């Protein structure tokens, strides 16, 4: 049995999960109404992962995430307004509107951003860990990737290097069962990706990714291993993406029955009910929490819709090279 959060921590984590859920729902609505352009990758259903990982870390630990990065960015501490502004392409966004929904970055909270070339970020995170070790830092790097990306060669190269060099990196596979449309059952050679750790002499563990206390506990344990044993660690968290891969996904590759079965394991339901059972929260409190979080995000979105503070193309060009535009 995993640890049980006390009331204060439990409420903080539950609020984070709810904020992530309503944030994603807001994004979905804004894309549907064409108030946002481009594409987006929602993590509805995966809230126990981001709400379980970052709070279990030292704030000075780093994360490097993926195209599905909203929840991780929120959980590591980014401002909702700066995130939303980035989605709108505004100059007060996390990357001044140059990155968009797949490239959120928040160095202040030790979020090194994301690679949207799935799997490639794992090598970057491994390199960050190499430099942390060289500088005798006590901190580690979490390299997020999915079950789809797990088949990229660069992840295998990175795990091998992390192992031979004893790097402080937590390989965190967010197994949501589908790489775009492909089911892991048909694409991945092992039952659990944790098994692949043994190929690189890295301890691997697989846990329920829909139970935030289980995820938190597993990350605490992994981080302890990395810091004490000076070895990398591979953690697979099993979860399910309720939404489609990206905004136009009609989810033809899976059944509504399967989705229904997973909805019974909704991480928000599991954890809110547990908090209510423990007497930390009433049903009415939970409804109010959801309303408050939704209102908060709606207000920020309202403020940003229609704003025109965008970089000029010449200002954008000034970020290509350190010395400005070079040819």
């Amino acid at each position, binding site marked *: 049995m995993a640890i049980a959060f006390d009331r204060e921590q439990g409420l903080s984590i539950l609020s984070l999960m709810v904020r992530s859920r309503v944030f994603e729902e807001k994004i979905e609505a804004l894309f549907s109404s064409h108030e946002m352009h481009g594409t987006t990758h929602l993590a509805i259903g995966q809230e126990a992962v981001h709400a379980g990982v970052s709070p279990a870390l030292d704030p000075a630990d780093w994360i490097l995430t993926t195209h599905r990065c909203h929840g991780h960015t929120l959980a590591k501490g980014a401002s909702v307004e700066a995130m939303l502004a980035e989605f709108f392409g505004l100059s007060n966004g996390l*990357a001044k509107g140059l990155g968009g929904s797949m490239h959120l970055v928040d160095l202040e909270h030790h979020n090194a951003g994301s690679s949207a070339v799935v799997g*490639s970020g794992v*090598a970057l995170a491994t390199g960050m860990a190499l430099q942390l070790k060289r500088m005798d830092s006590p901190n580690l790097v979490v390299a997020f990737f999915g079950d789809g990306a797990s088949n990229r060669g660069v992840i295998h190269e990175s795990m091998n*290097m992390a192992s031979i060099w004893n790097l402080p990196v937590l390989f965190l596979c967010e197994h949501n069962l589908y790489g775009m449309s492909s089911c892991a059952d048909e694409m991945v050679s092992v039952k659990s990706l944790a098994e692949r750790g043994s190929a690189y002499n890295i301890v691997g563990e697989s846990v329920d990714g829909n139970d935030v206390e289980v995820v938190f506990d597993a990350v605490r344990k992994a981080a302890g291993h990395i810091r004490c044993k000076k070895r990398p660690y591979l953690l697979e968290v099993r979860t399910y993406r309720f939404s489609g891969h990206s905004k136009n996904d009609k989810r033809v590759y899976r059944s509504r029955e399967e989705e229904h079965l997973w909805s019974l394991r909704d991480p928000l339901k599991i954890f809110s009910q547990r908090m209510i059972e423990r007497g930390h929260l009433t049903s009415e409190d939970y409804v109010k929490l959801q309303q408050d979080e939704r209102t908060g995000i709606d207000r920020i979105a309202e403020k940003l819709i229609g704003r025109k503070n965008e970089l000029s193309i010449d200002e954008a060009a000034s970020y290509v090279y350190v010395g400005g535009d070079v040819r």
Partner: protein
Amino acid sequence: MNTMSYREAIREAMMEEMARDEQVVVMGEDVGCYGGCFKVTPGLIERFGDRQVIETPVSEEGLVGVAVGAAMMGMRPIVEIMYGDFSTLAADPMINHAAKMRFMTAGQISIPLVYRTPMGSGTGAAAQHTQSLEHLFTNIPGLKVVYPATPADAKGLLKSAVRDDDPVVFLEHKLYGTEGIVPKGEYTIPLGKADIKRQGNDVSIITYGKTVFTALEAAAILEDDEVDVEVVDLRSLRPLDTHAIRASVRKTGRVVVVHEAPGFGGFSGEIIAQIVEDGKTFGALKAPVGRVCGREMPTPFNKNLEQQLPPSPHAIVDAVLGLFPSAV
């Protein structure tokens, strides 16, 4: 002044920069006691130890990605990729990551990384170890690309590349034993500045890398034909010294562009565009622009065939004489 080889000049640049800044780290396959595939790194691990010399597994994509990540955290890696051909493996970390990190984060993260790799034929190593792939990198905003020919340029440009806060692709030819005079003491050569390797008034040969020497040979032969050749060594491809290109062509009115990579879709097209896009330079042309490039084929193994692949001095001579129809 010292006489040293291209190889020694590159090594000396790395050693000076590693001694100056402990964040300068050489990474790559066999760069430790073996001294690197082309023996550029002997002595580094003995002097600087494994904190500044990191030997990696055969994992080009992974190791360049690791170097990019380390650079995000303050390291200034010099990555050695043993053959330029393997740049296909490193294309993702270089093109999708190193080149774009600063832009995608609106300047919050920069990647002070040097990517060293040798290119070109002449080693009997056949089609997968002899390509000239500079154009893979020259069309990528966010990358800088240099390709020095002489030991002195190699040293000065490498030191600048290491100190540059942007990712720099540092291309080397395989004439590592080529000797040349290198200034004593501390010096750097700025990226983006061409060098006139030979002054002349009748025709400009514009080139870079190993074919600088081929062009100089052709220029010596053309003395017999009383053609006074100027050889412009670009040294940097991005940023490109368009001013030097145009100034030389305006002076001579005739130009032949030379490189070992195949011409079709190659960097010579960009050089020619820079000449003809400028009205004053275009107006100064007294003949069509000439181009001598590598054959449109993979490098053959057979020695005689391999030698016919890159631009020869005689092919350049013929191209130059072709610009003077009345003289032929």
